[in-house]
């Protein structure tokens, strides 16, 4: 028999939002509730680009923009008309145990100095990061050993963290300049900036934020990287730190004040719209003001609503494909 429910896969960051929408969609429409899989942005896009047809997915969620290589792979498999839908932004916050040391304010520079594998000296020569306590980094920080739980390399969040915090810190501290001055080329400098220490002070989390939370709960000195919505749901256990003096809230992220955030997307196969009942309705419902607007359930759950939502709605209703 022919498939009659929408099939979605992709980012675990987008998953909660997609399932909230799917649930509401199933409640209010005659179409069956879409099936939403998680597994990561890349895994979702890989499935997405396997081809068109009933036994491939209709929508891929992603916590990043689709890459050129992926578009090519899609095209090679016959997936040519792709509609890109940006649903909003995800904020990335730094939080620690409620009763732990007072990690209330951070700057990118502090994180760079705490986590970089190697830090250039005055002459720009790289040396192993000597800092073991947050006070070594900045006397204003609490006296606690450095112990950070950051997303593992399988997570899209890691990329954002490296680029918007570590790299920024590298620049802010002037480390970048010194390295360049010492004759390193741009790529090597970036590489050196973003290389994270592997001596156990920085712990990669390959699991989810729940794992980060569990690790922080069993270690009072730990500081973890979380998604905003995760933090919002666990404010009784976590206390959040400001970044560069800005408190992370949906508002401060939407306005661009809070620096560490990223856009969230989903991608639709245009060819499937004609074949899969409810696909377009679902997409329209997803980006409707009721759902994705600043007052909608997604924002309530922690999604930073897109200020340009109206454009997105037009993209969906016109089925405008990517170029």
């Amino acid at each position, binding site marked *: 028999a022919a498939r009659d429910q929408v*099939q979605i896969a992709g980012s675990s960051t987008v998953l909660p939002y997609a*399932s*909230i929408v799917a649930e509401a969609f*199933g*409640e209010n429409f005659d179409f069956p509730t879409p099936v939403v899989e998680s597994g990561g942005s890349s895994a979702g896009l890989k499935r997405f680009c396997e081809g068109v047809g009933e036994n491939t997915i209709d929508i891929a969620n992603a916590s990043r923009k689709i890459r050129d290589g992926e578009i090519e792979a899609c095209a090679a498999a016959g997936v040519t008309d792709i509609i890109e839908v940006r649903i909003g932004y995800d904020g990335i916050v730094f939080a620690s145990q*409620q009763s732990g040391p007072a990690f209330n304010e951070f700057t990118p520079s502090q994180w760079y100095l705490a986590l970089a594998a190697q830090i250039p000296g005055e002459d720009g020569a790289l040396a192993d990061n000597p800092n073991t306590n947050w006070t070594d980094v900045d006397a204003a920080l609490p006296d606690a050993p450095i112990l950070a739980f950051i997303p593992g390399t399988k997570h899209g969040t890691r990329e954002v963290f490296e680029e918007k915090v570590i790299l920024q810190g590298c620049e802010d501290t002037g480390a970048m300049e010194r390295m360049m001055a010492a004759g390193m080329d741009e790529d090597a400098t970036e590489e050196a900036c973003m290389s994270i220490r592997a001596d156990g002070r920085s712990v990669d989390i390959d699991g989810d934020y729940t794992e980060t939370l569990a690790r922080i709960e069993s270690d009072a000195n730990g500081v973890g990287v979380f998604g905003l919505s995760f933090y919002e749901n666990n404010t009784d256990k976590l206390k959040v730190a400001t970044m560069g003096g800005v408190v992370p809230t949906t508002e401060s992220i939407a306005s661009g004040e809070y620096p560490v955030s990223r856009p969230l997307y989903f991608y639709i196969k245009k060819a499937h719209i004609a074949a899969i009942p409810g696909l377009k309705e679902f997409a329209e419902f997803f980006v409707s003001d009721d759902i994705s607007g600043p007052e909608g359930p997604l924002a309530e759950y922690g999604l930073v609503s897109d200020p340009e939502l109206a454009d997105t709605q037009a993209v969906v209703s016109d089925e405008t494909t990517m170029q």
Partner: protein
Amino acid sequence: MTDATAEHVPSGAGQGSLLAKDARTAKRNAAETRFKTYGLIAVCIGIAMLILLMTSILSNGLSAFRQTTIQVMVELPEDKLDKSGVRDPEVMAKVTTFGYKPLLRDSLIATVATAGIETDLDPKDLEALVSDESVAQLRDFVLANPEVIGQTIPVQVLANGRIDGFFKGRVTYESAALDNNVSPEQLQLAEALKEAGLLRTGFNWGFLTLPDGSDTRPEAAGLGVAILGSLYMMLIVLALALPIGVAASIYLEEFAPQNRWTDLIEVNISNLAAVPSIVFGILGLAIFINFAGLPQSAPIVGGLVLTLMTLPTIIIATRAALKAVPPSIRDAALGLGASKMQSVFHHVLPLAMPGILTGTIIGLAQALGETAPLLLIGMVAFVREYPSGPPEGLFDPATALPVQVFNWTQRSDPAFVERASGAIIVLLVFLLLMNLTAIFLRRRFERRW
């Protein structure tokens, strides 16, 4: 004791009184006691670990089987729900859950007021007392019973997860003070509602029957779809893996010529057991979905993948059990003119049965608890539609119990931790029910010769 006259009287093993133990015997006895104690300790460690894990699972998860509900007198005004007044279902369906939301909020305020409870919570916070699920519940009810429009009816709605958690001890006034999602005032109100008899905590059937709920509705998340999905998959695994595994073992152990080829196959099969389970998912995606065109997220594919994954376990156990049957039994049957096939099926197989059943128990336990291979075939998903009955239902989307555990442990709302532990309890009960027959049969087949 020994007679010195004999030409050769070796210092025999057991001379001297039986009641007095010589040093060597004492040493051997000590070794014996030690050995036996090690055995007992080993068994005890196993059982202690089980108890430890069970206690933690039960203490975390038993509360998932209780659920708090609030009784609200809901007013259903016609002008909001069916302006036309003709009760045309299509028209009525135009009012979405967003339209029902204010209704419920107003009714809740009225209910609280009627019960004589004073509160200075604003309407939004008051509304947060009940689950988001309740509007959907209400809408479904109204669409199914259009005649209630215009009346005020009592509706039993789910309490919000944090309120529910408060009555289970997960949420306290202290934690609420820090929590952005619930305030101590809300908890006070909930207590007052409880005193007024409007709020109660009862057995949570919904946990076993409802489908999964989204991240905002932990209180409405259930295992209905997952239980069906696991059941379907286990039926497939049992129906395929056991006969195929036993048949393959019989061939390899009893009939295959003993040569390099069969050695290779034997090594290969044990090696399959070491293949990470996610690789079976890759295989399943390639063969069953991309090549054979079976649907995604369907128990049939999950069952087939888990069958392939379980086969090595069953084959290894069965072969070991077949090997352990003494050859004299085979000889006896062959000597009477039984064919090899008969000697195997009449004599060897029954004697190997305990081992086969153990392999099945362990294999099924593994299959029932496995998530990784399901990741790639689309079963680690959010699915709210129940699959239909077999055989068609095997092709409908469904999840499985371990998937639900996996998903729930990743959600941000701590209420899902309790649900995940509850799901583990259900999974273990499921496993126990499944194994009971096998354990019973195994006891019947056990004998020494």
